[in-house]
């Protein structure tokens, strides 16, 4: 099968992943519960390895889908030549950077969960009713 056809297949596959993924991502971050995007709650959620797998896949899907879409537009409006190949390399580099950034963010959360800093002044000082950094028990699951 031709590269272009395989690329097209991936774009549709990633689209399906994104439709489901976005529903989950949005509900978890915006609608799931009050103050869902608060740091503590987010960290508590990310402690569960399931989310790590979800976000790894979700990350690759969104970056690939976005790159494929932009590349399609470039292919259609730019003639074969220097500009088009420049756009191609730009898209490849940008996607790589975003993937790395995404993975960095994911690993960042795990490092924080593995060794929490001094009590988080925000969570305590603000006296917010929100949960604190997950207790040792949650961490053990992680380790």
């Amino acid at each position, binding site marked *: *099968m031709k590269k*272009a056809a*395989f*690329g*097209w297949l991936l774009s549709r596959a990633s689209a399906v992943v994104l439709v489901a993924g976005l529903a989950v991502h949005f509900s978890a971050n915006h609608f799931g519960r009050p103050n869902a995007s608060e740091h503590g709650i987010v960290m508590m959620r990310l402690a569960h390895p399931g989310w790590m797998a979800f976000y790894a896949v979700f990350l690759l899907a969104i970056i690939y889908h976005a790159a494929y879409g932009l590349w399609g537009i470039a292919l*259609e*409006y730019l003639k074969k030549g220097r500009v088009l190949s420049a756009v191609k390399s730009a898209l490849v580099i940008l996607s790589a950077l975003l993937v790395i950034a995404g993975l960095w963010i994911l690993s960042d959360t795990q490092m924080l969960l593995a060794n929490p800093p001094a009590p988080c002044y925000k969570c305590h000082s603000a006296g917010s009713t929100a949960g604190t950094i997950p207790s040792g028990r949650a961490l053990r699951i992680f380790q």
Partner: protein
Amino acid sequence: MDKTFRIKRFAPEKDNASRWEDFSVELGPHERLLDGLVRIKEFTDGSLTFRRSCAHGMCGSCAMKINGRSRLACQTLADDMPELVIFEPLPAFPVIKDLVVDMEPFFEKIRSVMPYLVNDEPLPGRERPQSPEEMEKILDSIRCILCACCTSSCPVYWGDKQYLGPAALVKAARFVLDSRDRGGKARLDLVSGAHGAARCHSIYNCVEACPRDIDVTRHIAILKRQTLKRGLRGAR
């Protein structure tokens, strides 16, 4: 009833840009827009230039943009059109003169998809069997008259002249779906490149433009699925 034809004119020798020109023409019931164009050319302005031949929607010569839509002038009745009818050359093709465009780019795309039956098996003494059900599958795509209304109406083709275009893809699908054809693999490779079936974004302008009521986009979707099915099976 009296009609005003607003026609986009361009004479290669004199003009460097196109210009509009209005004609008023008398058309009876059941008369076609083409009859109006012929009447203007024969009795008002002999220099008005357009292609035409069969005058009943079977040859595809008189494809042009009428009131903002690619269609056949001979298949559009005067009764169905408003008082003002705007004629422009077919979109997305180089204009040669008045309503005549260069069709070579269109036919090149058709020729580039192996548009012929491929079957190197030994020829049987009689006709190759094909059931009515098998023939049913190609009943839609064999009706194409290559008038280019679809390709000229496709926004993707407007932007990307390398795109094969709906007409060439229907011609390819006609053979991919023909139970007698053995060239499926090679032909699917020709239409699954960067500017092939993948460029179709299900806009359906082609289906609305086709004077032969062919379900063009469905055929392109079939090519997409066939490419996957035969591609995933891995057989080169």
